[in-house]
């Protein structure tokens, strides 16, 4: 028997009205996030990720449908639910005149801290190498993001809702963040994070919901999505080379020749491609991750229906 979902939405819809115009930001979202999983909410900018998060947090109200968190209505029981939720907004704004420490103390006091939250906040700050003594206005965007992470995690919430959490973090800190999320999962907590970067989601998520134009197109295990993954490879040669050399290589689906370079779209292993160009002098190799839109098209085609 499946456990009760941590997040459950039923036909959750949000329409923004600006004057006479109505914009459907989210349409009939039916989503279920299970306890103890890291769920990635993937979609290009403007797909409806932030709208979904704001609906879950009761910052905005649905036009239709409902959202339940821990079995309770996200609107009717928002205050009690927020005790168990940690939130990091995509565009984080904090009180600029306060120090990091003062922000932490204020948030802890609103949460009814008995001292343990501040203690944990200090541990998190140490883990993220964050100096609490500075004023928020003096923080770089990366440090502000770190402070946001500390504030969202200091009370060890059962559910973490993170909107584009790693924006502004350097690669080393992204690794730390990833480990923090894995630790949260190991402690039985649930993480719901939005991103438009596939690689970020692939690194830590168990399942991914793909959102496009306000509609949930699919929910997949990350492994399945990775299987569909491909890369753009650009091989730069010393001499000219005909595209036919690599056209028949397994996994290669598109080949473009330009000057002394071949740009190929490769799914799967590298080895067959390198063997095919054996004997040609390679000056350089460049790899590029596909955009989310390209992955989406590869997986679902233009109309959003999954390719068989």
């Amino acid at each position, binding site marked *: 028997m499946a456990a009760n979902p941590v997040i459950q939405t039923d036909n959750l819809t949000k329409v923004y009205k600006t004057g006479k115009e109505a914009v459907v930001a989210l349409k009939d979202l039916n989503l279920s996030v299970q306890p103890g999983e890291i769920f990635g909410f993937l979609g290009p900018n403007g797909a409806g990720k932030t709208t979904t998060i704001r609906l879950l947090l009761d*910052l*905005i109200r649905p036009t239709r449908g409902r959202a339940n968190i821990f079995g309770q209505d996200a609107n009717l029981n928002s205050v009690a639910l927020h005790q168990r939720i940690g939130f990091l907004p995509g565009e984080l704004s904090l009180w600029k005149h306060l120090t990091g420490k003062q922000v932490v103390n204020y948030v802890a006091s609103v949460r009814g801290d008995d001292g343990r939250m501040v203690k944990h906040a200090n541990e998190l700050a140490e883990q993220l190498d964050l100096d609490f003594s500075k004023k928020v206005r003096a923080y770089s965007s990366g440090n502000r993001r770190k402070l946001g992470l500390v504030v969202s995690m200091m009370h060890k919430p059962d559910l973490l809702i993170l909107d584009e959490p790693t924006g502004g973090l350097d690669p080393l800190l992204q690794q730390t963040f990833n480990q923090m999320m894995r630790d949260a999962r190991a402690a039985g907590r649930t993480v719901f994070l939005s991103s438009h970067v596939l690689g970020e989601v692939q690194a830590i998520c168990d399942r991914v919901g793909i959102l496009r134009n306000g509609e949930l197109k699919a929910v997949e295990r990350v492994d399945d999505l990775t299987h569909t993954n491909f890369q753009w490879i650009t091989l730069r040669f010393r001499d000219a080379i005909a595209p036919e050399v690599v056209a028949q290589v397994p996994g290669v689906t598109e080949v473009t020749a330009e000057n002394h370079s071949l740009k190929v779209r490769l799914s799967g292993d590298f080895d067959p491609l390198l063997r095919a160009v054996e004997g040609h002098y390679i000056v350089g190799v460049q790899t590029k991750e596909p955009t989310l839109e390209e992955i989406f098209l590869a997986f679902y085609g233009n109309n959003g229906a999954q390719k068989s």
Partner: protein
Amino acid sequence: MSGVVFWNTLKSHWRGALYWGIGMGLLAYYILVIIPDVDALNQYAEMAATLPPVLMQMLGVSDSATLLAPEGFIGFGFFGYALLILAAYAVIAGLNVTANEEDEGILDIVLSLPLARWRLVVEKFAAHLVLTLGIVLMAILGMWLGVQQSVLDLNMARLVEATLNMLPGILFMIALTVFISVLVRRKAAAIGIVAGIIAASYFLDFIGKAVTNDIVQVVQKLSFYTYYDSAGVITHGLNVGNIALLLALTVILLAGALWFFNRRDVGL
């Protein structure tokens, strides 16, 4: 946790309120000590008598003889303008309730905490009520110090009443600002609308005092300044009806703000 927002608001804004209190206290003190003696008041009254009656009415002086009494002079020199000066404070305080944090995007974090929207508004308003009371008390202190140095026989109890009479007017303006900023969401728009309402109210009261026309008199009643009636209070004491009306309007505006804020989207 109950009261955290209240105490935090007090902590964040007490300095600003202190400066306002010192300013109002000094102004009150100054007005009292610049009245050297009865002869000086006679001179002011004689000078006022040469001005057109309409202009005197517009300045809040019903009769030049009013200026012969020290209380009348204080009513003209301090209480007539005090509420207009404190309107700036009231708008700033009202914006602090929701508009500033919403405009800066901080409200997303605040409302993701276990904190009901109504509690945020009520606790912040309560904190500003306490701060406003502090400002009024400092004005009373300035007045008391002025009375100690004055050679005139001044009715301190009446001066205290007149100073406390500012409180409902200030609270009304704070509540008005909260209501408008909850309604229109945008801070700049809220400032514009509230400033317009306050200016229009002052103007309607101004005109109402100067022109004896039935329509103008009726329209004057739409102005909250009419119910402040500083000249009336310093001459006859507090008007309970006026105070009750301003406080009732404050409660209604606050309830309206809570109703809208509880139902609307935040931070868009």
